[in-house]
């Protein structure tokens, strides 16, 4: 007993703490409570919270979110207080105002000035002026942005849904199924998309005209529908490839094997184990798909394959302004700047999302 209390004396030249200076009384056994304090764990964070925290620290991504939020807020709110419509030719007191062509920003036409002098009432200003058909350009830009953005989002969602279904089936089942499905993707990949869009819009123009008359789709026009069809037919392939690749790597993880060992069915494994783990890649790619869809729409509209008149999009606005580029450069600059702004903001946001959520980079 006595021996136990005396601690070992330090050996000569040993780097150890000289224990002979202490006795057993200097030490006290930790209580259960104190032991428990040792295994403190950090604050519980979910994957999503963690990613959002990183995203918030990224100034570029946050700036893009603010810019996009502003643009979206404006295009939603503006039509409520601007008294003009995108297809309406400006009229004063019920009379068509033929002097209101090609007005500069905040300029009033002769008729409008006369009317304001007579009644003393202030008319709503033409913030971006008017176009060659006497329409308020500001509201046309607002509607153009609406159309461009919604096409971008709808097309991306379409691409996402088709790509997700196709890619996850090919990736998960693998083998022959994968081989056949991916060869189909290769074939589609090799088709020239521009040619198909032009051919489809020509064909659909004729065939669809009768069907869509009187429906909501009519205002979009057959060109727009053919753009959607083309997105649905062609643009999902890169998404499908990406998701297949993700699933191929994830399905070899041991937790998928563990789920199979438990007896989990394929659908549940895909839903609970595989898709949540490639969610970050899916979100990022979809975010990056939106600007590319807007871009495609813009340049198709610029080529004259866009939405049906009088509805407009940013691309067709730019196309319309092309003719009078030297006299009224602002009419080309405004939609062009907006396209750049939206595409840049979405791209930066996509990059920010990737930095925040892609586990491989962390």
């Amino acid at each position, binding site marked *: 007993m006595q021996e136990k209390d005396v601690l070992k004396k330090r050996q000569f030249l040993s780097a150890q703490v000289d224990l002979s200076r202490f006795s057993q009384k200097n030490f006290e056994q930790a209580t259960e409570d104190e032991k428990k304090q040792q295994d403190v764990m950090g604050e519980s964070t979910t994957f999503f919270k963690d990613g959002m925290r990183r995203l918030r620290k990224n100034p570029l991504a946050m700036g893009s979110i603010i810019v996009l939020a502003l643009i979206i807020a404006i295009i939603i709110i503006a039509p409520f207080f601007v008294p003009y419509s995108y297809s309406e030719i400006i009229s004063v007191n019920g009379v068509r105002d033929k002097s209101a062509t090609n007005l500069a920003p905040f300029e009033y036409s002769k008729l409008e000035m006369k009317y304001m002098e007579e009644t003393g009432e202030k008319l709503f200003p033409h913030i971006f002026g008017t176009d060659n058909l006497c329409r308020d350009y500001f509201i046309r830009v607002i509607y153009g942005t609406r159309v461009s953005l919604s096409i971008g989002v709808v097309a991306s969602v379409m691409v996402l849904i088709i790509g997700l279904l196709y890619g996850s089936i090919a990736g998960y089942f693998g083998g022959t199924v994968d081989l056949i499905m991916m060869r189909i993707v290769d074939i589609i990949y090799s088709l020239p998309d521009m040619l198909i869009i032009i051919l489809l819009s020509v064909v659909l123009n004729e065939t669809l005209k009768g069907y869509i008359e009187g429906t909501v789709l009519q205002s979009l026009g057959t060109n727009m529908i053919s753009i959607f069809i083309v997105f649905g037919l062609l643009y999902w392939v890169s998404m499908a490839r990406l998701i297949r690749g993700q699933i191929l790597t994830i399905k070899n993880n041991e937790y998928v094997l*563990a789920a199979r060992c438990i*007896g989990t069915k394929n659908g549940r494994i895909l839903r609970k184990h595989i898709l949540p783990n490639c969610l970050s890649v899916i979100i990022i790619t979809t975010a990056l798909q939106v600007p590319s869809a807007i871009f495609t729409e813009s340049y198709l509209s610029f080529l004259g394959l866009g939405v049906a008149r009088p509805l407009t999009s940013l691309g067709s606005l730019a196309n319309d302004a092309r003719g009078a580029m030297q006299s009224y450069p602002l009419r080309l600059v405004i939609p062009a700047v907006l396209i750049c702004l939206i595409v840049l903001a979405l791209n930066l946001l996509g990059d920010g999302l990737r930095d925040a959520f892609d586990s491989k980079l962390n």
Partner: protein
Amino acid sequence: MSEKEKYLLKVDHLKQYFPVRQGFKTIPLKAVDDISFQVRPGETLGLVGESGCGKTTVGRTLLRLYQPTAGRIEFDGEVLFDSGEQYDENGRLKLGSDGKPVMGKKVDVNMLPYRRQMQMVFQDPYSSLNPRMTVEDIIGEPLDVHKLYENRDERREKILSLMELVGLNAEHAMRYAHEFSGGQRQRIGIARALAVNPKFIVCDEPVSALDVSIQAQVVNMFEELQDKLGVAYLFIAHDLLVVHHISDRIAVMYLGKMMELADADELNNNPIHPYTLSLLSAVPIPDPETARKSKRIVLEGDVPSPLKMPTGCPFRTRCRYATEQCAAEMPQLKDRGNGHFVACWNK
């Protein structure tokens, strides 16, 4: 018949080949080649061998995570898989008069009900838990799949009692796997395997990814759980000391074939197969005095590629006792008394 009843798991002539494409040809990679063994209820069978010898494949094939190429798996008196080949008492394939193997009845059952009886604990506690799921959901998944609860409260209760069983703090049920240490993660994996109350668990190198101090904790926990629940283990590892500590019997594998099978102490004290001898001589000895005196048997050459297996006994290329007979035919596992099985012509 009574002899048969004693076994929980009976594996006969199990083969697992994987097709490997080399240019235009597809050749089989013989990961597991004709092995047979039995596991008694509540016992631990250790399975050792160097990396790449097919230990993990045996475990996964037993649980039918891979479709076996051939063989017969019998669990708890019921045949789970039978490819139909017949063997004579010398372990040779029975051939009919036309030179083709005599085929019996083929069996391939739906594994879902049996997944409640056989489970697995995985090697890497970092990749075997889904990073997007909470501990509660990971342990609860087997309960969900097999519908083992009436309502949410019962599910919760079961999960918490499982966590307690493996020594996890119940407060951590809502946390994600990445917030735990390696040892704790392995406990989560064990709780998941125990959730369905299995009779048999394949432990696929469950401690080799852990620190030595944690290894001891986890190994001891496996033993405690066996005492409490009476579950049988197939304990796969390459650490002979750990295997000897936990196992009742030990099987030694080399290149997809079973070399020796004996009681743990018998194998340790009286190894017969030359491969087992060299394997045991490579076990580090903690005492330097004894270590200096002991002789290490160093094997010459490398492990042959499993794509180009030597004829006959796969160990003959590195064995000092190899003869012509070894090249001609693979020796069968033969009982040398006391349940000590060895597959060698010369020893």
